[in-house]
């Protein structure tokens, strides 16, 4: 069996309880190499919870997660990040009072070369600002006045752009995007969709959580339908219509096979 046959991520029997609420209820999850996997489901179905469990932001109560066939137990998102896994949180996880450049580099700041960096631990602000500006331009997502301006002075869509740019800039394995276009305009959403395709072209897999069916059907290779805390089924978007998908996720229809893709 070649490494390509082993899924990039495989999770089995994940459970996460918050008091009496069962956010993840014995759910499975699979992400394959180089694919775009869309995750859809009703509000509160547990989509954010399951991706958080995979990237270490939540610790599941039960179940196992394998990355490239090896079991992992992330105790924090930092550990997932060290493996090249990035996530755009639904809440964005930006520090409002810090600048765009500071936010792009939180936890992985660049230091000056030589004495200043080694002994005085001085940040290389010019390099970080240059990199941040480059990444935002690549995304073509926004014309911000200054890369030094605090994130709280940006619009909701611009903030989302910063979070997406941050993930895309540093990922080497896969990126999870939890509703990355929810606050974006038509044009900006289009840019993010193009970015998602570009990222896949670089060989990086993507998990896209979205409520926007046209977007999902446009970019996804497979669709994971989440319902009541667990994976209901996965489908191939070429074999089903949007209304089928919506019917499955709302419970109006039951899929005939659990793994149709």
């Amino acid at each position, binding site marked *: 069996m070649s490494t390509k046959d082993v899924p990039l991520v495989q999770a089995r029997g994940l459970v996460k309880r918050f008091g009496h609420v069962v956010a993840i209820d014995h759910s499975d999850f699979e992400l394959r190499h180089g694919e775009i996997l869309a995750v859809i489901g009703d509000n509160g179905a547990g989509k954010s919870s399951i991706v958080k469990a995979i990237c270490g932001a939540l610790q599941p109560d039960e179940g196992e997660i394998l990355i490239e066939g090896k079991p992992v137990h992330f105790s924090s998102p930092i550990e997932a990040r060290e493996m090249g896994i990035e996530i755009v*949180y639904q809440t964005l*996880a930006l520090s409002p009072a810090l600048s765009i450049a500071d*936010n792009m580099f939180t936890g992985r700041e660049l230091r000056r070369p030589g004495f200043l960096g080694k002994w005085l*631990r*001085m940040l290389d602000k010019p390099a970080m600002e240059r990199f941040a500006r480059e990444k935002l331009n690549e995304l073509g997502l926004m*014309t911000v006045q200054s890369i030094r301006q605090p994130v709280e002075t940006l619009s909701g869509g611009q903030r989302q752009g910063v979070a997406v740019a941050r993930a895309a800039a540093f990922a080497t394995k896969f990126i999870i995007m939890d509703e990355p276009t929810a606050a974006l305009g038509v044009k900006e959403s289009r840019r993010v969709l193009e970015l998602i395709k570009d990222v896949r072209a670089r060989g990086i897999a993507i998990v896209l959580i979205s409520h926007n069916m046209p977007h999902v059907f446009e970019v996804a290779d497979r669709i994971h339908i989440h319902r009541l805390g667990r994976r209901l089924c996965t489908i191939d978007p070429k074999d089903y219509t949007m209304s089928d998908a919506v019917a499955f996720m709302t419970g109006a229809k039951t899929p005939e096979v659990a793994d149709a893709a």
Partner: protein
Amino acid sequence: MNDVADRSPGATEAEAGLAGAASAVAEFQPRRRTLLDHIQHVLHNNPTLVPVIVLALSLVAFGIIAGERFFSPFNLSLIMQQVSIIGMLAAAQSLIILTAGIDLSVAAIMVLMSVVMGNLAVNMGVPTPIAIVAGFAGGAAAGLLNGVLITRVKLPPFITTLGTWNVFFALNLWLSGAQSIRSQDIDEKAPLLKFFGESIQLGGAKITFGVILMVLMFLALWYMLNHTAWGRHVYAVGDDPEAAELSGIRTERVLLSVYTLAGFLCALAGWAAIGRVGSISPQSFYEGNLQSITAVVIGGISLFGGRGSILGALFGALIVGVFQSGLRIAGVDVLWQVFAIGWLIIIAVAIDQWIRRVSA
């Protein structure tokens, strides 16, 4: 949250309309701004501006009211000396307030550690440098205790440090037997303890080593907060701890380092306080905790964390010193000094609230 129903398949058709769209991505309609909006924005971007302006205005005002005597090099350097110890405590306090915490025990740690240094060096004959290092270690340990209670036991900083304030104060009375160590005894057995009381004469001004230490402390912390990753993390943790954790900051470690460093700085202030006061009194600086918070607040550092510059706390401490000196020279009763400082605090917090509202 988006509902599926209002995202019809028409969304992609709608994108066809993009064909002729302008290529500039975000164009801002320059919203008409009143002068007040402008001021609010400028202050939001430069949090130390308010204390600097207040300091300048109060210098001018007291120069006019109290005249020559206020502006003499001697008096100005005296203000610096009077401010130095509370200034150092305010530096430590700023670090903690930037993380959205508060430390009611700073002065208690300081006095306890000067008692420790004095006891070891003067009463027990331990070599003075070792006594001083022991005091530093004790200060760091006391800060670490606060940090552990806050991050591991998850107690609110206010309650934690209210508790440890009392604990440290009691230890201090126990160690000292509620007795002061006299100035002559220190001179005789451990003169190094008074190092920061030494001074250099510059014209009419007397610059003590304690004043120099305070200024260096602020500059070093300013550098650390603005030019190292640790400093950026301190701000991020105070701003939104959850976002900080998710974006890859070990928030607990940052908090522990902040409380430990603050404890160490308090011990350093304890050493400097021996030089400033001359003797070691377990009852001294009883109001130091609140005075340090006063300086930080007047300096424009937000009690909600993540906002403000540490240099603001230096200006805040100086403003308090200038008010006290100016009003005293003008012959105003002490009670009105207290009255004025009280209003300064309230106005400073009101301005902070107003500035914070800009971010919408």
